[in-house]
């Protein structure tokens, strides 16, 4: 039997030794998510692209921080709000935009769309449109690594709302009792769709739920990529040593609506609350650290933005000019034959 502890944030001085390379790495991952999401949101709202999008803007530090300590061999499962996880894990813009446009060149050949981006070469085991649905699957990926002894870990990303669903609790208990190499990454953005946290659970700190499974729980500032990275690194090292899973609660915020940029315009959030979170923007924060410490110049950060905009334009052009799927192939891949 174990007695788990809840801790708050990474160790003191976690950001002191951040290198130029690390800052640029985290920054690039976050900017790529931000520009992709803002572009995709506009394309859907203009009617150019089908489907509907759950945009990740605001939460980039969580995906970037965790993914910076994972390799391609490590597996993740994601959510309906999954573009950020895929991009931070290394997914490319061309097949991502192509998938959103429903083209054969997309990650899922146009079969999955926004909520099902997969990239097996990058350890992206799929985004999942059932809240909590990906969590037990990540447990399976972690089990496969333990079974084979390959040293891999699995991370499952999910929101505050998902911690109320049965799949989360079953998965957390099983991962804990079998000491599986896994990270439970709860991105607490304060809202389950349009229902605020205080209306959907009694807890303030969701990390407290970890204790009931005998699993360490860590609360971290989800707007600070260096802080997220620090706690994720500790959790991954423990998992690789056979020390079992960790629950990370990253307190964060989505800038846009549950779905789309403007969404359904339901006034469920105070505009002052939105602005308060935006004032602590994750990308501005890391740019400030880089510039203040003299590690990265403002011009260099600007080049990352410019290059990313160019990459996004290239991805959209690729998607638009890619072929549509052939309805004659509609039965392909229902089964493995």
């Amino acid at each position, binding site marked *: 039997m174990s007695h788990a502890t809840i801790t708050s944030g990474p160790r003191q001085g976690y950001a002191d030794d951040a290198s130029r390379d690390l800052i640029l790495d985290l920054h690039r991952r976050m900017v790529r998510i931000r520009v992709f999401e803002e572009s995709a949101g506009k394309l859907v709202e203009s009617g150019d692209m089908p489907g509907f999008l759950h945009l990740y803007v605001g939460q980039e530090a969580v995906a970037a921080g965790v993914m910076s300590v994972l390799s391609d061999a490590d*597996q993740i*499962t994601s959510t309906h709000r999954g573009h950020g996880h895929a991009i931070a894990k290394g997914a490319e813009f061309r097949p991502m935009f192509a998938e959103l446009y429903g083209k054969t060149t*997309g*990650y*899922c*050949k*146009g*079969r*999955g769309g926004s909520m*099902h981006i*997969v990239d*097996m070469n990058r350890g992206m*085991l*799929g985004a*999942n449109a*059932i809240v909590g*649905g990906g*969590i*037990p*699957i*990540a*447990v*399976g*990926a*972690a*089990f*496969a*690594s333990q*079974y084979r002894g390959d040293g891999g870990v*699995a991370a499952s990303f999910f929101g505050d709302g998902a911690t109320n669903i*049965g*799949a989360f609790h*079953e*998965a957390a*208990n*099983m991962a804990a*009792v*079998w000491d599986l190499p896994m990270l439970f990454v709860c991105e607490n953005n304060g809202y389950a769709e349009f229902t605020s946290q205080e209306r959907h659970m009694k807890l303030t700190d969701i990390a407290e739920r970890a204790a009931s499974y005998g699993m360490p729980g860590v609360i971290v500032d989800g707007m600070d990529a260096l802080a997220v990275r620090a706690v994720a690194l500790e959790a991954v090292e423990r998992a690789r040593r056979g020390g079992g899973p960790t629950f990370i609660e990253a307190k964060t915020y989505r800038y846009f609506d549950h779905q789309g940029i403007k969404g359904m315009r339901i006034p469920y959030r105070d505009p002052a609350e939105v602005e308060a979170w935006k004032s602590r923007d994750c990308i501005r924060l890391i740019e400030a650290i880089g510039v203040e410490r003299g590690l990265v110049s403002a011009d260099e950060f600007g080049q990352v933005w410019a290059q990313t905009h160019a990459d996004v334009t290239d991805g959209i052009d690729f998607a638009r000019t890619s072929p549509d799927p052939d309805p004659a192939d509609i039965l*392909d*891949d*229902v*089964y*493995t034959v």
Partner: protein
Amino acid sequence: MTTRELTYVKAFNEGMHQAMAADPDVFLIGEDVAGYGGVFHMFDGLLTEFGEARVKDTPIAEQAIIGLGVGAAARGLRPVCDLMFMDFIGVAMDQIFNQAAKMKYMFGGAVSVPLTITTAGGAGMSAAAQHSQSLEAWLAHVPGLKVAMPASPYDAKGLIVGAIRDDNPTIVVLNKRMLGLKGPVPEELYSIPMGVANVVHTGSDVTIIAMGRMVVEADKAVTALGEQGISAELIDPRTVQPLDIDTIITSVKKTNRVLIVHEAVEFGGIGAEISSQIQERVFDYLDAPVARLAAPFAPVPYAPVLENAYVPDAPRIAAAVRRLVERS
């Protein structure tokens, strides 16, 4: 040399042993499958032979059991996840029909899910409404899943091996009342592929299509009917998804009369699908409407007298066949 006989459950167990010995990627998880060997002793001896890393007792957590299997299968292993009673699939249904079934398709073919789910269905033990159902039509309705219903010891072994070797999520539904049934089972490892029906008896007057334990009851009925001069052909589809409709159609063209028998409730059962496909393809060959014999539209009752009335049996199958033959 005569083939040795094994019980249904021992034949299944032998298939598990041989499939696990043949492939180190095969592992088994479920509630009390390791130390206890499964509540029906389906998994006896596996822990001893293969050890705790490959044969694991789980918490009572059906979503996590199946979800773990989905994730491990997507990573290339061949999990066998046991759900004990078929009624429990409801607890795990999201992982079965939204995850396991769809991953291949919605990810554009990037992932295969060679997952096997074992479970025990069927009524007749006074186990009542939550431990007795036959829910194969639910599963067969979901693109991406395969569903096997072994109806003999030979098939119990061959279909579990076939399911484990299949690259798709496959549910193997054993029948609780058949566990002690004996029949010939070869000692060597063999595999029955999904989607190949078994013509249990050949006949010329009528085709009986039966699933699971109803094959055993129909078999008795065929014998009784034979004594009365009625020649019945008995087809066991073995798997309801995929369904070997061609074997059925060939038989119907010969006999011109069809009775479909299953333990599941009649409304929306597999019999409805088979009946519809028959009339679409060989309507002109039929001498009578396709008949069905199945459970009434009620949960499975507890009292033996009610349960006996609920599940079709050999005398009622024979009577239904006689009605079919007499009307045409």
